[in-house]
């Protein structure tokens, strides 16, 4: 990594760590290795969204050409969101691609992702299945996103008993919980279709 990148990252980390508004904005970073190429980000689920109460981890990788190229950022915590892959956590966000500017920082990137969690862009989806549900069945989307927050992001909302019962049914058939949740979510919680999908 170039000198400029290293010095800048040190400052950026300090900025996020010491910034007093961290407690208010709910973003955090954690340094994983000495040369600052891998960083862990944390975003608290914004209030009044299905992600409220959850804590979401992100993997941040700093490229060789940083800050002239954007960092690669993806969710390490599974999240049900139209602009995030429910399988891999890859994020569809313009500033992480062609709209990157050298003056953007890890802090502004994390704040942008948090804003994306508040306002999804279903017209420019990363996960087409989630986006379709978001547009066609907003109630199901909300309940599913809340269920995922509870299950994967240590959310605090009460569990959706109906969904839990369906997941348990699949688990009784020997399906891993994570797969059961994923397949049920993709099939709008239709147990029959999920079963057919898994066992055919």
């Amino acid at each position, binding site marked *: 990594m170039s000198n400029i990148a290293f010095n*800048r990252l040190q400052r950026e980390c300090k900025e996020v760590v010491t910034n007093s508004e961290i407690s208010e904005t709910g973003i955090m970073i954690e340094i994983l290795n000495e040369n600052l190429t891998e960083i862990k980000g944390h975003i608290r689920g914004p209030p009044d969204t299905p992600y409220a109460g959850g804590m979401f981890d992100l993997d941040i990788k700093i490229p060789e050409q940083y800050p002239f190229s954007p960092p690669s950022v993806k969710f390490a915590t599974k999240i049900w969101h139209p602009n995030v892959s429910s399988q891999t956590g890859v994020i569809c966000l313009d500033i992480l691609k062609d709209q990157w*500017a050298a*003056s953007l920082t890890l802090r502004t990137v994390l704040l942008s992702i948090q804003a994306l969690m508040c306002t999804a862009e279903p017209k420019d989806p990363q996960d087409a299945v989630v986006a379709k549900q978001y547009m066609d069945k907003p109630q199901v989307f909300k309940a599913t996103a809340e269920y995922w927050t509870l299950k994967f992001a240590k959310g605090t909302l009460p569990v959706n008993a109906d969904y839990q019962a369906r997941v348990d049914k699949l688990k009784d058939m020997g399906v891993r919980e994570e797969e059961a949740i994923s397949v049920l979510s993709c099939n709008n919680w239709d147990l029959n279709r999920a079963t057919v999908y898994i066992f055919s």
Partner: protein
Amino acid sequence: MEKVHFFACFLYESMLGRSATETTENINRASAERGASRKTVQQWFTKFACGDASLEEKKVVEGILKVDHHKTKEMGNCLPSLFGFSRQHDETPMRRSRSSENAMSFTNPAMMQTSSSYVNQLYQHNVIRQRQAEERGKEIDEAKKNRIRGLLDQIPADVFRGDMASTECAICMIDFEPGERIRFLPCMHSFHQECVDEWLLKSFTCPSCLEPVDSTILSSLTAHNMQSLHQITSSSPSTSSSAKH
């Protein structure tokens, strides 16, 4: 996986206009048992690009036809439908005459010849298109860089002095030190010259506000900036000396 599967993939990927590096990645992702080296892919791509690969091409296609169809299927997304590929093109005579044939009918020897010459045709068309696009892309890229290099000299730059308003370079996030060269963009944002020049070669916009550092803005503002710069320079000896002493 046998050699011929790799060839099929190389050809397929090159038809899609992918680069050798992308192809290597795709193949290695899809094939668990044995990967392809970038060098090999590069060699094949060069052969394809020569245009005179019809002999190789034929071997490849006929080779695929002999191998087990299901084996090729294992390649997953790298090779979704090499067999189905040709059937998607409505304008080809093959499509019209044999539209009802399914992919497996490629094992029919009579079909082989049609497909070979068809694939040849399709492939040559692709090579020409690909090469044109590449050249255009290169020309545009090089022209853009040259244009930007020429324009960089037009953007005002100066040595930083303590009395200037801006204090920090938003690219490296380090405070300006007296004596460092800084560049002023038309939007009045300033950066270390070496930091912002590297950025501008990539994207001709201000890293802070994304304002395009466009040539028209530049020509209209350069005069203004030069003037104000001149004013600063002419008034600075007294201010800076008084500040120092």
